[in-house]
């Protein structure tokens, strides 16, 4: 087994573990192919099982012969291991480094993980494009499912099946694909049942400096407009950035060629800037100084909250165009795999009540992120502690979850899931025993045979035992569109992720439990009263004949 070569010292005794809020534990440290394990070998003492893939970075320190390894995790936790013996410490450190940065996907833990539970409902089969299309078909007949991307040749980042206007043939699609970044021709993202308006997404048009046009592309998106109606193109980049893109062959839709469309530019930052922002934010949160000025200026300088505001605002704008202006919308940035998906998925949360259910949210993540080709593998390769030069890491998905959390805070009764569900998705996107977030596209997932070789996160999440922990006790379905406030006063720091390991949440957890208790007690009483009333009514009707003289 290849792992054995990487593990220089598989076992060290008398290692001391320091973790946030937990007592220190002394025990034996073991390295396996996928886990770092610390066991005190005593019953009822908590052990540490840490996935190597969850390790973002490590630091080493030595005082005499006592070595210390600081392990910084992708879920933002920091733990410390005191290891006696310099050589052992060095060995452990280099082993962890090697094991946590394995390049080969097929060596990842999900391929070795065997679930300890019985898979009742296989998450891999739950959300196929064909399933989603069935729902659409029940509402409209203006769209069709195209197999043009069957072998992922037209667009490597699209799924094999995409939804396109019925009147547009595959030939036109092919030509439009050639005109869009990464072959990402405009496809349906969301159909607004209330007024029949749609949201589409794509890659940027490849107009280049000399203003290339593509009749087929124009035809394709115009086919989504009702007669006499116009639509909006939401470009997630500023006009300046979009202009610059021309020099590299990209660009934006020229008014002259798309007269029925009005283009709006927003300013969602690109991935490397977002990654830098995350690093700065986490650094601010971990700052030990007690200075308020320092904290607030670091928080501001990280720009994280600005990104949240910008993304949320753009999503609200898209939703507003569809619901309030009664117009269809096309969303794109550059590649159409990052900011575009943030906007299209958040707009659906705002517009579509189903997306606010647990199952609906899973479907949304599948549809708008996994199948839509967000490169999870690249984006989540490193988290906030990566100190190397970022390649293509970026907290795009985390920002999306943060925005969902903001809306959840503003509409605490309109979501079936709770904050814990969002935090769990964040964790699994970065390191997981499940295969769901492996790979960068549907094509890669097929190639890796994930659905056969790994377990889906949804198979686990949807087990009743697990589901229970994700349910929001305040939930009551709300069929309305929910418009969040995007004012800075309304947007909060997501403490559940960013301060999770910095302060104990005991009191907040207790408050949550109390809330659950209040609601459960109410339901219990309701049931009791109902059954007693029924009994009473029954007794009464039995008695009533006697009553009549």
């Amino acid at each position, binding site marked *: 087994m290849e792992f054995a070569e990487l593990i220089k010292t598989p076992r060290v005794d008398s290692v001391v573990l320091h973790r946030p809020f937990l007592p220190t534990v002394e025990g034996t440290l073991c390295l396996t192919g996928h886990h770092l394990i610390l066991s005190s070998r005593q019953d009822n003492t908590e052990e540490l099982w840490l996935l190597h893939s969850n390790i973002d970075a490590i630091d080493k320190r030595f005082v005499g012969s006592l070595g210390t390894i600081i392990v910084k995790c992708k879920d933002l936790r920091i733990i410390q291991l005191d290891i006696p013996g310099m050589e052992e410490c060095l060995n452990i450190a280099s082993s962890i480094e090697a094991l946590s940065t394995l390049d080969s996907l097929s060596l990842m833990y999900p391929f070795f993980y065997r679930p300890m539970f019985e898979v009742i409902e296989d998450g891999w089969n739950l959300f196929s494009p064909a399933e989603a299309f069935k729902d659409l078909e029940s509402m409209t007949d203006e769209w069709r499912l195209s197999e043009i991307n069957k072998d992922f040749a037209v667009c490597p980042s699209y799924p094999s099946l995409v939804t396109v206007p019925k009147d547009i043939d595959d030939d036109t699609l092919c030509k439009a694909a050639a005109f869009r970044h990464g072959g990402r021709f405009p496809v349906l993202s969301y159909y607004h049942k209330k007024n029949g308006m749609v949201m589409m997404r794509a890659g940027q048009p490849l107009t280049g400096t000399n203003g290339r046009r593509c009749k087929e592309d124009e035809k394709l998106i115009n086919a989504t407009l009702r007669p006499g109606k116009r639509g909006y193109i939401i470009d997630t980049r500023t006009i300046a950035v979009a202009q610059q893109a021309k020099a590299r062959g990209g660009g934006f839709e020229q008014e002259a060629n798309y007269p029925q469309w009005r283009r709006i530019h927003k300013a969602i930052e690109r991935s490397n800037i977002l990654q830098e922002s995350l690093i700065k934010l986490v650094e601010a949160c971990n700052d030990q100084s007690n200075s308020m000025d320092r904290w607030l200026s670091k928080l501001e300088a990280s720009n994280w909250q600005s990104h949240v505001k910008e993304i949320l605002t753009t999503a609200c704008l898209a939703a507003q165009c569809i619901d309030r202006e009664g117009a269809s919308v096309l969303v794109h940035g550059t590649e159409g795999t990052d900011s575009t998906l943030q906007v299209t998925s958040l707009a659906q949360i705002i517009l579509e009540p189903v997306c606010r259910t647990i199952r609906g949210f899973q479907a949304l993540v599948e549809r708008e992120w996994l199948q839509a080709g967000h490169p999870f593998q690249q984006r989540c390769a490193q988290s906030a502690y990566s100190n190397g030069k970022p390649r293509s890491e970026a907290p795009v998905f985390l920002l999306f979850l943060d925005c969902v959390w903001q809306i959840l805070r503003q509409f605490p009764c309109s979501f079936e899931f709770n904050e814990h569900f969002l935090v769990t998705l964040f964790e699994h996107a970065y390191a997981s025993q499940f295969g769901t977030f492996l790979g960068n596209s549907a094509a890669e997932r097929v190639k890796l045979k994930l659905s056969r070789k790994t377990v889906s996160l949804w198979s686990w999440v949807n087990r009743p035992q697990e589901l229970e922990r994700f349910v929001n006790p305040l939930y009551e379905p*709300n069929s309305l569109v929910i418009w969040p406030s995007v004012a800075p006063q309304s947007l909060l720091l997501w403490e559940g992720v960013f301060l999770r390991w910095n302060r104990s949440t005991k009191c907040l957890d207790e408050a949550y439990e109390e809330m659950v208790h209040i609601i459960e007690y109410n339901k219990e009483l309701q049931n009791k009263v109902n059954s007693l009333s029924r009994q009473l009514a029954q007794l009464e009707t039995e008695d009533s004949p006697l009553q009549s003289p």
Partner: protein
Amino acid sequence: MEHIRLPKVDKVHLVERGSSRRPQVGTLYLTASHTIFVDSEAEVRNETWVHHSLVRNVEKQNVTSLGYPLLIQCKNFQVIQLIIPQESDCNDVVMSLVRLSRAERYEELYCFSFKPNLDKTERDQAWNFIDLRAEYSRMGVPNKLWHLSPINREYRVCDTYPADLFVPKSATLPVIVGSSKFRSRGRFPTLSYFCKETQAAICRSSQPLSGFSARCLEDEQMLQAIMKSNPGSQFMYVVDTRPKLNAMANRATGKGYESEDNYTNIKFQFIGIENIHVMRNSQQKLIEVSDLRSPSMGEFLSGLENSDWLKHIQTILNAGKFIAKAVAEEGVSVLVHCSDGWDRTAQVCSVASVLLDPFYRTLKGLMVLIEKDWVSFGHKFSHRYSHLDEDPKEVSPVIDQFLECVWQLMEQFPCAFEYNERFLISIHNHVHSCHYGNFISNCEKERKDLGIKEKTHSVWPHLWTNKSDFMNPLFRTDHSQTQGVLRPLTTPYCFKFWRGLYNRFDRGLHPRQSVLDCLMAVKEETQQLEELLADCEQKLAALGKEQVNGVCVNKRTVNQSRALWAQPAHISLANTPQDYNEGILGSSPKDWSLQQKETESTGLGLFGVTPKTSDPDNSDQESSSGGDSFPSEDSVKDADLDEAV
């Protein structure tokens, strides 16, 4: 009434800050006590009432197409813009309001004309609702070491202190008098809080008149007596809540702080809370930040940082934490003072008390605490909250900071407080509104001289009557969080901007569904269900036992509040998008103040197409607080009804 130049103006526009809703059109009334705006177009009666005492500033603005706007900024952070068609009317309104909002004599304040339906006995009872002697005995004094001193009965030793004061039994009259002569304004060390469990006490005073070298034997004996009244301890803390530099500067004017060389067995500590002027400026900056119209995140955060407000809150909470720790964990008594001992000292003593004693985390307890540490000990309410038209340099948000400390604690300990945020906001409102007499004037003696208890009413019974609005549904007396001492974190990230207070009236900024409201509704329903259950069980038993025919079953049904609370509190609000794109879509709120009223959003301005949406949830109908009939002087609507909304 002679100050009202114009009692009524028609066709006035009222513009709500930060709302995309179109302005209301209606009639403006000026009464002796309130400015009242009645929306003449609303189907349901919709009134806006503002106490004159709440008005912080009235400002005429540049003319617009609708008329002459004036901006009313209130002490409770409400901002109202009125647009009056005629310039002369506007001038009259401004002049009247300026005069009305700046009372020159106490008797002009609303509390002296507010006449609720209470007879004399009821009024006296209401004033006795909070009984400080009972509170001291709850703490465990008098006891064998502490007693109630008659020394200040006639306010002769210290005119800003209460008549009833607790001091160590071992402190003789000459010692107290001597000590009082050595303290600013005679405010000698006296008991604020006594901790039964550890026998440690929190005492308060003003600064000693020590200058660079002066000593006072009696004052030293006084501190010694306090220290000795806590038999278990070897020393006591003296906490000077000022920054060291300020305290040192005071020495040059013959004041200063205690020297560890002169006072035996004291440990001296500076805390570094800034003075009232710094705090006033800080809050002013904070208000400006909260008033920004669609600020960027950067503008907001840097504004928050530059205001230094949260830093001050952090310092005050840290001071309270230090004292609570000394008293509860070390069992050491503490003497707290600042300069005069009525601002920072009141803040710090009361914050420490909230941390130490669960009683102060109950509704009644907070009332008692404010009556004790603030009202009775001569916090200068009328100066600090400018009840009268006096020196603006005396104004400072001292109690705001205490209330905010409590709010920050509530955020950290959501189950620990019996009351909710609205209670704090309501108290804040009453401190400024002059609706009740409790906070009028600057000390107990002044209130006696004014006849406050005879001529005005007490706010506490009124708040108590409305307590269902102020309850925290998560509070349970047997919950672990409600027990014992609170040990809050004071790392910077624990402090948040208090949106609920500073943007209280900007409803668009608040969560669209309120967990508090939901849980309150559920708890109310639970209570009904419990009654219903008992009812059913009783009837079942009766039916089963006696086989009586014709038992009339009470078919009472419980309000199905679940479905109600799940709906957004303001459906209209939940369904009103903000201005997400600086006015590219529809009409921007900014235009509202300038344009003649328009119907709904104007749709796609760019294409000239106006798609008329016909969905039912499109209407921006606002639920209004139903008033009874048109306001008359004697049927003054209860201000709290609005607050609870």
